């Protein structure tokens, strides 16, 4: 049996730079893709928070934005379409000392992964969920997504979508998420600050990020968002007021809000789980049973 006794080779002062979080390969996103802004913001946020690459686990599903872990230097899991939150929950429960950041797109998270989105929010799993929402399926070359606007013409809706889009912000609030925010990859400074808050928040943090797809979504590009976007903090929004948060989240016209909609204190799943009360992460505990435990189990069978 082998268990990890220490995690760091030698204790020494370290200074982090953005390039420390540069992955092994260059991003393969299209030039102008909103996801670049998200990547840069997260690198900056991790530098400013002093999290080291080996302390972070990024988990993604499948899609353009789900290629994220490969472009970010940290432990990563590039999993199945829609399953990132489930995998991340397992990893976080196994090692609750990790900083877990889940990255993905709107189709991955709100479509095929919608069930996990609901339940991860209500469980208040302590992780940060960054959804690069471009309102389109990009990697499959442009089909309607769960956040595409009604009427949007795509390859799978050539005459316009007849369905209503999901509102990720109100959905997350209704499902019990404790940190719900919206960012815009065209404002990386603002996004970096949101990310830092989200990572520091103990519980499930969603940042739905407008991350335009310059190749397949010509309806919701930078020129669509820039004149409309207003910051909640400039409006004096109270992030403790869930009703006001929902009202602001529903705005979708000349004004679209970004910023922190809701934040509340609720114990996260790892804090609520008695098995984690003491003894450190379960992935590092010794395996097997003590002879006292074994005897107690057998006795109950007699």
């Amino acid at each position, binding site marked *: 049996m082998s268990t990890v006794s220490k995690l760091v080779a030698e204790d020494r002062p370290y200074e982090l730079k953005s390039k420390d979080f540069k992955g092994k390969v260059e991003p393969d996103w299209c030039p102008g893709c909103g996801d670049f802004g998200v990547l840069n913001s997260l690198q900056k946020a991790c530098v400013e928070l002093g999290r080291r690459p*080996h302390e972070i*686990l990024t988990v993604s599903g499948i899609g353009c934005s789900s290629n994220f872990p490969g472009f970010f230097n940290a432990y990563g899991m590039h999993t199945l379409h829609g*399953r990132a939150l489930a995998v991340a929950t397992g990893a976080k429960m196994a090692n609750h000392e990790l900083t877990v950041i889940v990255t993905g797109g709107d189709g991955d998270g709100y479509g095929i992964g919608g069930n996990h989105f609901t339940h991860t929010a209500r469980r208040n799993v302590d992780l940060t969920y960054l959804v690069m929402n471009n309102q389109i399926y990009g990697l499959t070359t442009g089909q309607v997504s769960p956040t595409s606007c009604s009427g949007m013409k795509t390859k799978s809706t050539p005459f316009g979508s007849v369905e209503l889009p999901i509102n990720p912000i109100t959905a997350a609030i209704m499902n019990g998420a404790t940190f719900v925010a919206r960012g815009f990859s065209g404002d990386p400074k603002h996004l970096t600050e949101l990310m830092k808050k989200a990572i520091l928040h103990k519980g499930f943090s969603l940042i739905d990020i407008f991350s335009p797809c310059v190749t397949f979504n010509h309806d919701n590009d930078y020129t669509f968002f820039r004149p409309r976007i207003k910051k909640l903090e400039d409006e004096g929004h109270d992030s403790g007021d869930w009703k006001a948060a929902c009202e602001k989240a529903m705005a979708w016209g000349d004004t679209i809000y970004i910023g922190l909609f809701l934040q509340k204190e609720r114990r996260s799943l790892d804090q609520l789980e008695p098995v984690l009360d003491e003894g450190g992460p379960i992935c590092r*505990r010794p395996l*097997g049973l003590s002879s006292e*435990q074994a005897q107690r189990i057998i006795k109950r069978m007699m």
Partner: protein
Amino acid sequence: MGSGKFDFALGIGGAAGQGIATPGDILARIFVRRGLHLNTYNAYQSIIRGGHIFLTVRVADRKVLNHGDKLDLLLCLNQDTMTRHLRLLGAGARAIFNSDTIEPGQAAEGVHLCPMPVAQLTNNNRNSLVQNTVALGVMTSMLGLDFKILETILTLQFQRKGQSLVDENVGVARTGFDYAEKNFEPFPFALPTGPKPLAVWSGNEALAMGGAAAGVKFYCAYPMSPSTGVLHWMAQNARELGIMVRQVEDEIGVANMAIGAAHAGCRAMCATSGGGFALMTEAIGMAGMMEVPVVFINVQRAGPSTGVPTKTEQGDLWQALGASQGDFERFIVAPRDALDAFNTIPELFNLADKCQCPGIVISDLLISEGRYSVEPDEINMRPTINRGDLITDPSPSNGYLRYKDTESGISPRATPGLEGHVHVAATDEHDEDGVLISDEFTNPHKRRKMVEKRARKFKGIAEQIAPPQLEGPETAEITLIGWGSTYGVISEAAEQLRELGVTANHLHIKWLVPLHGQHIVDVLSRSKKTIIVENNYSGQFFRYLRSETGLSVTGHIRKYDGEPFMPHHIVNGVLEHLAGKTAHYVPYQEIMV
């Protein structure tokens, strides 16, 4: 009763909600405390109230391999049970029933009908469960036991609910006991005593305990019959044993969560039945591609689709063989009984950790929901744990290759959190460093290298696992071949055949992947006639064995009505085969449940 050996079976029948489990549990406790072995099978339906439930408890002074062929005692809790099962009783057997509510049926000659005037005996106690307690007293008398034995167990059973309930139940049982002493003839044997008390478990409990013993620290599941017992044991014992147990939104989430926990370094396990397993399959392929050791248990029930949720079948072998797209390495193992299920889990975890791949356990309703005696000394709660090539030391430099192309195909594994081993595990094909080769950098030579690297992990793996052993005489007229849960019933059928003068032996396959193909060919080359016995329609194991070895057999015995085999089903099939009547025998299920 077999000649010279103690072998006794009783059946309790009624509707769901009539409290069949309680007298069943109490009798089981009486038997195992005396050191007697038992094997119970509960036939039930997917209903909380009503329907028909029939519990068979077979008890003997040696290991009981299955629930047997016949009944010595029938307790009818309703008219339906009398109507269905009285005809199964032979001379010397007894049928106990509440004569206030149940009309006796037409019994065979020599069957003792034992009416209990329950209302009269209990001063018109209107509790519908009171007949069960009266019957316990009656059965205690008929088995020639001292009433004190029942009193002790009833006290243990009810003491949590207060002394008045203990007194009431003991009093009612006493009236039943006294009534039987005066009115019914006891069985003409003395209930023997074994050398030491035994323990009782179900197959699901054995699987869960196997996980705990193997060092499982993360268990998750979605409730699904007949696998839910594993979840219940885990949930009940989790806090004491430091195991994290989660009930997840669906089986897709279950499999993915288990893989997340396993990737982070826990031993992780989950259990389901065929429908849930279908939802897990994409994730099982992820464990193959990312090289994550995880154990998935499929407790089979009769399919396809929702099928017959409370009935047994061995119908998911090809589902396990084909779980998830693409070629990848996985272990598939079908334990033969509860103790074997317990021992299989730590062994499978060691193999999965060694080869960094998923392991699949195929159980079924018969093993998982049956309750069995077990000798406490046989349960090794502290088995060998070997986590394989796991890196535990941090490194100041970053040259780590998670998927290093080694000679064995096994790449030393580091888990998140350890300095100097940062890497990305991906479901896309990737190179040694984890970088994707599937998108921009597709490279056929790298793809071939990585496919072969993963496949190499299984080279020679069968030699590290015990091959199946032929049981019975070396040469025989007939060799019976089975896999998984049919071990006990085939063993007993082979013994019955030998008693009938037919030499029979038995080859039972537990490890399906890897399959000891050459070994099986060698063993069967010495056989004259060969019959494969399977609890399914299409001969899934036969087709698999043929595809792997080219072997064929001379006959088949298949049952797919939802009920498990009884020994005589197999004996009859063999006799018909030997008589040249059929090469494909489908037994008739006599007990209607």
